[in-house]
């Protein structure tokens, strides 16, 4: 796939899964970019790491299950997914139990990742 000429996009997800519409909007944006063959990476940062809590059940609040949506990322070839190590530790999120495979990044790693991308879509 000829993607070398396309800008590298990083979607930064900072919102809790069910606290606002932005969580869903950010995932939809990531999926849309992937569907258009955009080279894309995704970073769960700050409160956004709570989207990776396993075993989510949103049926009682009438919203679509975010974890299930995240589980579809590999089907869209979204393979570069990162999690903010400090936030995951602070909020008790175990990356090894997340609904999709992630790589943990410390603050320096996050800085380097952002530096390596052409555009940030931050929600």
């Amino acid at each position, binding site marked *: 796939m000829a993607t070398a000429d396309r800008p590298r996009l990083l979607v930064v997800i900072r919102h809790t899964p069910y606290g606002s519409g*932005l969580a869903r*909007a950010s995932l939809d*944006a990531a999926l849309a*970019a992937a569907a258009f063959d955009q080279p894309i990476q995704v970073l769960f940062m700050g409160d956004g790491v709570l989207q990776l809590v396993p075993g989510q059940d949103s049926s009682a609040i009438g919203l679509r299950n975010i974890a299930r949506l995240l589980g579809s990322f590999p089907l869209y070839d979204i393979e570069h997914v990162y999690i903010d190590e400090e936030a995951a530790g602070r909020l008790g999120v175990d990356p090894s139990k997340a609904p999709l495979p992630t790589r943990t990044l410390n603050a320096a790693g996050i800085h380097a990742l952002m530096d390596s991308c052409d555009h940030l*879509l*931050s929600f």
Partner: protein
Amino acid sequence: MIYSLLIVASPVSGHGARTAAGFALSAIASGHSIQRVFFLDDGVYCGTASAVFPQDEADRLQPWLQLAREHAVELVLCVSSALRRGMLDPTEAERHEKAAATVHPAFCIGGLGQLVEAVNQCDRLITFGG
């Protein structure tokens, strides 16, 4: 420089949407170009044709109309954000059998693909709100 803007801020809460419109007008005045503004989440409320603002407050719609009419800036509301907020153009109102359109004709309703396209075509993408 070519800018694209992503607006996730509501026009009636906080300053993000107002700052975005001011940035766009200033950027154009400084010789830059703004091709497309994409409105997502609560940002889609910027396109409402039916909001009535108090006389002592700024009209939130007017700067966007100026951008569209005087500078041919494309104003796109995300379709999934817009529909669930009752932001309908005549086509969507008819399709979903709703009483009236609520989106100003200066705005169009489109998919997230238009955001991706804007990202590909600009030098800088700037997000307001979130």
